[in-house]
């Protein structure tokens, strides 16, 4: 099972500033290990952000994104206490979902 994400969501006016740290190797499939074998690709392909049960962001992520990436979103119309749910799915079919409350 993948490691947890770290989500922070803070409200500035009616705009929620969401920051998420994702724990993922994000292997692009082009690197070679010390023995010269290609390291198989392993990266996040899709990511979704829901606020209060409503999907607000659907994104596609590719191999150009770094290992353990940080994402930042600004979402209008959020209220304090709204539940933020972030999900990702990688090319091996692994998924992870974590949540936090808008503070």
């Amino acid at each position, binding site marked *: 099972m993948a490691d947890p994400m770290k989500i922070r969501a803070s409200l500035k006016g009616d705009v929620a500033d969401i920051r998420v*740290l994702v724990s993922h190797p994000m292997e692009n499939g082009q690197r070679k290990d010390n023995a010269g074998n290609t390291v198989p690709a392993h990266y996040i392909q899709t990511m979704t952000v829901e606020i209060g049960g409503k999907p607000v962001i659907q994104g596609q992520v590719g191999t150009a994104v770094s290992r353990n990436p*940080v994402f930042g979103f600004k979402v209008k119309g959020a209220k304090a206490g709204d539940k933020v749910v972030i999900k990702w799915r990688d090319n091996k079919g692994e998924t992870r979902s974590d949540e936090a409350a808008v503070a």
Partner: protein
Amino acid sequence: MRKPRILGALCAITSLGIAHAQTAEVDHAKADAEFAKFRAEMEDSNPAELFELKGEELWKVKRGPKSVSLAESCDLGLGVGKVEGAYVQMPRYFADANAVMDAERRIVWCMVEKQGFKFADIAKKPFQGANDTNPPEITSLVTFVAGHSRNMKFAVPLKDPKVKEIWEIGKEITNYRAGPYDFSCNTCHGSDGKRIRMQNLPNIGTHEGAVKGVMGWPGYRMTGGVMLTHQWRMNDCFRQQRFPEPKYASDTVTALLTYMTANANGAVYKGPGIKR
């Protein structure tokens, strides 16, 4: 008639020289300011936090042949299981081990003595390599412990004669010139205003320089996305000097960390950092 003209030309040359030196100074400050901006932006969401989480898990769970947790067995100098403020008060003297130890070395000692792990197994791969997806467990543990000293002041107990002795040895090591380049730590880090390419080199013998040397370790290095400890940094200094690298958790590294961290005493530690 001729004399004043020459004098004038000389003056012009001198002032040119000064102007050039001033530009270099400004560039130094500018580069530092740009790095500071970058860190401020990144510290807000530093991937090091992911390893603090992992380290916390490892700290609390019962592991090893003896099946005990570090939380219930490991004393980092402030009592068994207490991590708040422990990182900024190490290296310190531990009577049970009869040695001065830095944070990483102490945790390794606990893993061996309390949990029953074999030192050789930990020392086999103590640091994260460029091709490794995750750092070794010990790195996450150090990051977790360091994270619990965030915004606290460095306070290495230098009044303890045993710690002071190791501090003196550390100072001696920074002066020791050897290797194919006849280098010592102080060749680069012993005076103010030096740099390698674009990197300003701190003078670790001074308080300000030592603060720069200890701040941000353990750190997440953007290049390659690896989590590294201050022990790793010391080993890398030896590598760059073309010295043989010290054994893992060696006395030499503890002495250097004692020297540097104690010189930074009084400065506020900002927690695990982010590096280029």
